[in-house]
């Protein structure tokens, strides 16, 4: 008798465990150690907030995020990616701040026939020649933001430009982007050793000698803050500074603390700004501020979007995360509410979106942030899409 009850219970238990859904495992690779961790930590905050906002579920599946630290190193990033694919049993891999880490790690995911969603890095090879049907990018293509900036420079009748950027994949893409749209003359260019060079006194002397109408720069993370400090100290504050990915919600609080008023009023371009007026963004920014006491960065905004993007695909396929073809088709539709407003994917799975000019301002609470001042590029698609045979 007891045996019968036991076996019945066992069968029931097994049956119910089958009915009890599974979860979706999302591997998220970002930088959680080293000096660049500030970016990865911001992304993690955003992903955690997104998971909270969706109630921890995508459709009927429980959401399980596995974070891995790339240590700002392409080889480590690649190894962690392999770990996710081989032993983490992940369904989707997302994240990747750095272009060089992404380029090293992408083959691992794509060769395993899994979907890879970049929440920041947008190197040109992956947008063009080496595009892949399972690769998606929910941020931008590296060239776009500086292309928008080139447009802004033209709009403001800048005739001569000095370019300062670091010598790695993203740096080169940024410079290529500006040079593509800027109609004036580039009177000087220095591609500094990355990431070891943190003193620009020699370069600033050259800038002063060249007397350009404006300076264009790209230095993400900690380099940005150091660059801006030294820029002001070198007496260059009267030369307008235009930047991409250098001034953001991560660097501004520190610059405010250091009283670097020189950055107020400088211009940059971006696909998003904390002050964008749509319900999704308003909730994101408000809750992020409430929880962490600071504005989210664009890195965070992208990471936040990646979760909602995945959610839309999971729900569209009815939870069939293992069916890569169905998931891909659903992802391509980009049928989700993005914090940037409208967005859709091009043939190469990179976003087609607006880019805005933004200015550094002081908000009503005295905190430094950025505000949209105009549209630089509308519904813009990256230039590499035509090289992609998807």
């Amino acid at each position, binding site marked *: 008798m007891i045996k019968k009850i036991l076996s019945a219970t066992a069968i029931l238990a097994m049956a119910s465990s089958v009915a009890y859904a599974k979860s979706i495992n999302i591997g998220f690779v970002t930088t959680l150690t080293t000096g660049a961790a500030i970016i990865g930590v911001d992304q993690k905050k955003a992903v955690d907030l997104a998971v909270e906002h969706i109630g921890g579920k995508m459709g009927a599946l429980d959401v399980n995020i596995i974070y891995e630290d790339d240590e700002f190193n392409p080889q480590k990033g690649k190894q962690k990616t392999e770990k996710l694919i081989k032993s983490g049993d992940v369904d989707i891999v997302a994240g990747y701040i750095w272009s060089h880490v992404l380029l090293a790690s992408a083959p691992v995911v794509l060769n395993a026939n899994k979907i890879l969603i970049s929440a920041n890095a947008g190197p040109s090879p992956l947008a063009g020649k080496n595009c892949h049907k399972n690769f998606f990018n929910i941020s931008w293509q590296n060239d776009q933001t500086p292309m928008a900036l080139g447009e802004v420079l033209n709009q403001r009748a800048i005739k001569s430009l000095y370019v300062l950027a670091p010598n790695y994949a993203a740096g080169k893409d940024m410079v290529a982007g500006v040079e593509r749209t800027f109609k004036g003359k580039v009177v000087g260019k220095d591609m500094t050793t990355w990431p070891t060079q943190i*003193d620009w006194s020699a370069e600033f002397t*050259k800038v002063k000698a060249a007397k350009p109408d404006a300076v264009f720069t790209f230095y993400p993370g900690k380099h940005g803050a150091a660059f801006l400090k*030294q820029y002001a*100290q*070198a007496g260059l504050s009267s030369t307008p500074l235009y930047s991409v990915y250098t001034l953001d919600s991560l660097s501004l609080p520190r610059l405010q603390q*250091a009283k670097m008023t020189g950055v107020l009023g400088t211009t940059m371009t971006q696909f998003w700004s904390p002050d964008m007026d749509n319900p999704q963004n308003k909730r994101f920014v408000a809750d992020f501020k409430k929880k962490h006491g600071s504005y989210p960065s664009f890195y965070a905004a992208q990471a936040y979007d990646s979760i909602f993007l995945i959610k839309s695909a999971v729900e569209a396929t009815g939870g069939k995360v293992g069916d890569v073809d169905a998931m891909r088709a659903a992802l391509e539709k980009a049928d989700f509410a993005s914090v940037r407003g409208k967005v859709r994917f091009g043939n190469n799975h990179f976003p087609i979106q607006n880019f805005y000019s933004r200015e550094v301002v002081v908000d009503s609470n005295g905190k430094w942030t950025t505000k949209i001042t105009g549209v630089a590029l509308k519904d813009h698609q990256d230039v590499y899409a035509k090289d992609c045979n998807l």
Partner: protein
Amino acid sequence: MDINIFVEQLLNGFQLGMLLFLFAAGLTLVFGIMDLVNLAHGSIYMVGAFTAATLTLWLDSFILGIIFALPLTLLFGMVLEFIALRTIYARDHMDQVLATFGLILFLNELVRIIWGPAGLAIPLPILLDGSINLPLGIVYPTYRLFIILIGVLVAIGLYWLVAKTRLGMLIRAGASNRVMASALGVNIRLLFTAVFGLGAMLAGLAGMLIAPINQAQIGMGEEILILAFVVIVIGGIGSIRGAFIASILAGVIDTMGRAFLDVLLLALLPSNAAEAAGPALSSMLIYLLMAAVLVFRPQGLFPPRGG
């Protein structure tokens, strides 16, 4: 090319050299007199920077911040010496390298836990934050001139200490013959502690001075460490004078390389390659110099007298 550009670049190189000197001075003292290869010198530099940053923000004054941070950094250095470094004095250099390498890992993580992963910026007083008009039409950052001034003062002070005071004499005695010196009644233990303390303060000062330019960052010590070792080998281990000259040389070579090498290379290479190779090659130059010194004059360019 204008003369004022050249002079300004020279000043840039000089200033870079000064920062390097402040860091290398402590390193060469400890290495030369105590025979200790201390990779964690960079960690003391980092702690100095963070301490000064925090104090500056609390006290709302950069000068006060430095004044109070110096003794705190000294304290930190002493604690470090007592707990971790005493045991490795007698070890061979490889052991010292490896042990202090482990120390770096530990201290970086500790700083991360205390101060968080982001860097700390130090606001400068208005007086130091602007630029000064120099002759030849050069507009130069005030703060960089300040650094050059401090560097020169420290160099003079150190020279006076080592060459003209009793303490300096004891230092030199202890370095050249430890056993004899202690037989003559010199407390070598205490002496080493004093030297290490001095070295720690110098490292801390270097960190505090560079922080307003580059922010206090985790791992900032490693960025400068290898270069500092190169410099003291070129200058002569244990020689303050050598460290000074070699640091200036290193700063000027690096700056001049970044300023003018790409122009030279553009004549030989396509522009992309020239733009990238320039900065990287100028980094290489200083290592080439060290290799040459080691092969032809291994005691360094200005070895300490009688050392």
